[in-house]
């Protein structure tokens, strides 16, 4: 699991990174909200953890910007115990969960395990982007028409929607969709990208995957209103 951590207290950041690394999570630490927005726009993460009070840009402002860009990644906010308003504004800004400071690492790790269970066991259900709907449980893509997807196509499109408008390199896509299968290379990924492109076209969607063979690839809204 890849985690983006935004925490301005260097000491605390180091402790969290060490704890997460010890559980084999891959952590990218940043120290203010602006850096968090930048990293989020460039990479694919499975989880983001943001402190609220940070210099340059607060965690809540960063979260709002990230959500506005279309990113639906799971976000946990770190809030001060006394500030009920912080929890409310954080959740209203698009956070999925919060932990009050001071917190125990045990609790943070338990919440991450809970998140892992959810994404592994229940899939992500139904996702929307532009004029398409992806039902991961039914493995079905819908727009003005509907079509079935294979398990891998579903996983790939799921990842694209969660990271819409980002240019994603092939290695990340292969890693997330095929996990431990070492036989998968650029050519296989290209075939699956081609399937998805044709299926998006077959359901008359105004959504497309941009990129040449070899990547990076980017899911974009191609309707007149959606183009920015």
């Amino acid at each position, binding site marked *: 699991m890849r985690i983006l951590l935004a925490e301005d207290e260097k000491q605390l950041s180091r402790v969290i990174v060490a704890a997460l690394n010890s559980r084999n999570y891959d952590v990218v630490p940043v120290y203010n909200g602006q850096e968090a927005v930048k990293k989020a726009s460039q990479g694919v993460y499975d989880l983001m953890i943001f402190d609220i009070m940070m210099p340059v840009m607060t965690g809540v402002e960063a979260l709002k910007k990230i959500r506005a860009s279309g990113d639906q990644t799971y976000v946990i906010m770190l809030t001060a115990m006394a500030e009920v308003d912080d929890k409310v504004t954080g959740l209203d800004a698009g956070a999925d969960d919060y932990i009050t400071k001071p917190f125990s690492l045990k609790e943070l790790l338990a919440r991450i395990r809970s998140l892992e269970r959810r994404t592994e066991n229940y899939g992500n259900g139904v996702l929307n982007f532009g004029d398409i709907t992806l039902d991961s449980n039914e493995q079905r893509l819908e727009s003005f028409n509907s*079509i079935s997807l294979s398990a891998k196509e579903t996983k790939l499109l799921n990842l694209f929607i969660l990271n819409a408008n980002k240019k994603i390199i092939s290695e990340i896509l292969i890693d997330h969709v095929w996990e431990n299968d070492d036989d998968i290379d650029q050519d296989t990924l290209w075939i699956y990208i081609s399937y998805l492109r*044709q299926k998006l076209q077959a359901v008359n969607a105004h959504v497309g995957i941009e990129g040449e063979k070899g990547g990076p690839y980017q899911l974009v809204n191609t309707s007149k209103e959606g183009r920015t």
Partner: protein
Amino acid sequence: MEIYGSFKPYLSKIKDEVMGKLDILNQKEIKNNKNKLYEHLIGRIKTEDSMMDKCQRKGFSLSPKSALYECKDAIGIRIVCNFIDDVYRAIELLKQADWCTVVKEKDYITRSKPNGYRSYHLILKVATPYPAIDGSMAGSYFVEIQLRTIAMDSWASLEHEMKYKHNIENSAQIVKELKRCADQLASCDVQMQTIRQLIRENR
């Protein structure tokens, strides 16, 4: 009653002639080193009983004019293709053909019916040497063309079977499964077409 009246003998002839013209289009494609246009053709003349039912349902009078002019599917030809690309190639060729004009088209492939039905319907107006209801000695007749892939055709047969059996148990589930099956067949059609394109790009 004979709803087609004196025009009945011409219908089979026109059907055969149009099928002949489709065969010529196909032969031309093959001669130009392209894939065959279609897998097979099926033609039929709507029975007079079904035509009378249809006219009654639509509130038309039971006359040759209703059967041949108001309704445009007395003569029907189905073009069954291997791949989705071939369906669209055939449509383009029909639009360019000098012996007919496309007067109506419905694309149920990019916008399938809610039950999952996929097919492309065209109504052609075909010039013939035969007398027509407008009084002309060499008049035009309408021909309905349905274009679909083999997968869509098999699905339609299955759906047809279900539609005409009224006492099926679990019919709601069957309808749902038919829809799911249509989406899966569409998925296979798109997959085959994509593989064909990838093979061509590698050539």
